[in-house]
């Protein structure tokens, strides 16, 4: 595609470039710049902040307490991504190989939650997972059923059902994040699988490989770009998740975004919050750089 040098068409260039460039500068770079400067600052008084060029905030952010929260956030995000991948891959396969009649409906089924308000979805999940919610009563019914079966064969019944604390703990955070991010994973997986030449799968079967072997030797390597895209699209927002751990988590399940929020809204320690924010951004950059590196080495091969 022949691009034109902006100098040859200054007026059309100015017409399309001015507004986006200024918007990005004023309403993105400058706000981010403020945060960056504050991260080297110090609180003086209640609202006054001095930019003194100190690294104290970063030092504090890398203390074991906060480093631990960072690592935990990474672990939770990684676990959520892994679950989404394992749960989502067969769904993407099913959509790819569904009949023409079913495919649009399955896609719609995945897309609709994607378009539904995040807060409503989280809140809906909380209703189901509550102490007296349907998840618990469903499990309770299973428990009682099992107990009844045991008495039927003449064994001691199980102890009475105690509702499980499904909400307000780390388990709830993981379930909540999976619930929210699953559609993000399925869609890129689907578009990668859909692009895959089906005769490659047939060729593998034809040469004697079973379905599992074909999956790991042909489908997964060829769908790798889609898998990586799905992983990134899930991992990055999960790492910075605020809402789910805040609403569904317990006292011990705060993630890094919750700590950042506290610095700004409650603890009123903006410089420290700013430093944490930028550390989070640097981690994102590192993740994306890793992906870029992978892509590069893939191309060289």
């Amino acid at each position: 595609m022949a691009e034109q040098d902006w100098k040859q068409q200054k007026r059309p260039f100015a017409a399309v470039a001015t507004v986006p460039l200024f918007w990005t500068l004023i309403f993105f770079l400058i706000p981010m710049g403020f945060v960056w400067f504050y991260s080297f600052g110090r609180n003086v008084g209640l609202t006054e902040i001095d930019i003194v060029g100190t690294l104290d905030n970063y030092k504090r952010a890398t203390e074991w307490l906060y480093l631990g929260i960072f690592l935990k956030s990474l672990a939770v995000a990684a676990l959520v991504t892994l679950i989404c991948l394992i749960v989502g891959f067969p769904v993407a396969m099913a959509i790819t190989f569904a009949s023409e009649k079913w495919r649009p409906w399955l896609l719609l089924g995945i897309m609709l939650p994607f378009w539904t308000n995040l807060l409503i979805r989280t809140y809906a999940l909380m209703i189901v997972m509550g102490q007296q919610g349907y998840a618990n009563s469903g499990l309770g019914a299973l428990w009682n059923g099992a107990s009844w079966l045991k008495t039927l064969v003449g064994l001691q019944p199980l102890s009475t059902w105690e509702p499980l604390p499904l909400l307000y703990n780390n388990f709830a955070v993981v379930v909540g994040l999976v619930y929210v991010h699953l559609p993000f994973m399925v869609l890129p997986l689907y578009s990668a699988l859909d692009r895959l030449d089906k005769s490659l799968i047939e060729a593998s079967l034809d040469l004697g490989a079973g379905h599992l072997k074909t999956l790991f030797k042909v489908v997964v390597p060829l769908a790798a770009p889609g898998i990586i895209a799905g992983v990134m699209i899930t991992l990055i927002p999960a790492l910075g998740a605020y809402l789910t751990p805040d609403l569904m988590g317990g006292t011990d399940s705060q993630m890094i975004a919750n700590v950042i929020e506290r610095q700004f809204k409650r603890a009123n320690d903006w410089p420290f919050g700013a430093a944490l924010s930028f550390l989070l951004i640097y981690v994102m950059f590192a993740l994306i750089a890793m992906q870029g590196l992978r892509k590069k080495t893939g191309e060289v091969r």
Partner: protein
Amino acid sequence: MTEPIIQIRNVTKRFGKVAAVDNVSLDIMAGEFFVLLGPSGCGKTTLLRMIAGFEVPTEGQILIDGQDMSRVPPNKRPVNMVFQSYAVFPHMSVADNVAYGLKIAGVGRGEREDRVREALDLVKLGGFEDRMPDQMSGGQRQRVALARSLVMRPKVLLLDEPLSALDAKLRAQMQFELADLQDEVGITFVTVTHDQDEALSMASRIAVINKGEVAQLATPSDLYEYPANRFVADFVGSVNIFEGKLIIDEPDKAAVDCPGLGKVYLNHGVTGPHGADVWVALRPEKMYLHVQGKGKAVEAAAKDAPEGHNFARGQIKGMSYLGDITLFEIKLDSGAMIRVSRPNLSRHDQEDFTWDDKVSMHWRADSPVVLLG
């Protein structure tokens, strides 16, 4: 007599309500170069994919080497396939592609390497082991696909439109190479194609498929010279077809009166009741063309046919010079159009004829074919 390597018994495949393959029965013998020929959408590829195991027949049975394949998945069948898109694994080198099936079969490293090398040499790709597929031309990728299948030493090699993606020159070359290769390895080849030239040049036998049914099963020359019906006559090669009535029907001779063409005499008997409506098929290259008024055509025709038979007059309405032959579109005196081809035996041959020339033509009594359907 040996048992057929593939037996297709009353196989029907329906997609929804449409029968892609309709009650087909075929026997393919070991060592054959068998071609399934037909227009696109006729069901030939579906038939091939059922042999490979990628489609399940709605009814009927497929036996390979005497074994019923109904419950055998593709990865357990003693056949291998070369796909239309070649389906060379883009993330594996040439050697890894060819070794893929052997690795899965658990063939040891040493033997594997020998067999891969052997297979690559066979398809003339020695030295390309470490190339990636995206660094190769379409023709080379096809050879990789061939080697990948041949290395498995299948009982039958299935080829789906193997030459359709190649350019004309390469296609002609590969036709010969495939035939040679088949000779060399002695494996049964079953090929699907819509290209009659390809089918005629490579096949030992051809099944012409039309609308899911076998229209004719014959050797290439029989198919061309003795087509069984109008579909085959028209699909294989080019042909002039005229409607007529059977007026003489004897064991050693026959004649058809065609309003469009005139009286056609044959020096052999045909099946069909006297007075039946039939069709006469006459190939363009089987007619002799003369400048009218010299009486040669009449004379020549008289040699093996009664007077007034196997002879027609007309006017040249179109000509296309194709190098080796010139093709004439001639409007007969009856008003019907006929195509006649004429070899350009010498350099200035075609100059004898030009637009609007009055011409006459004759043909020998063994040239026309009488078709009942």
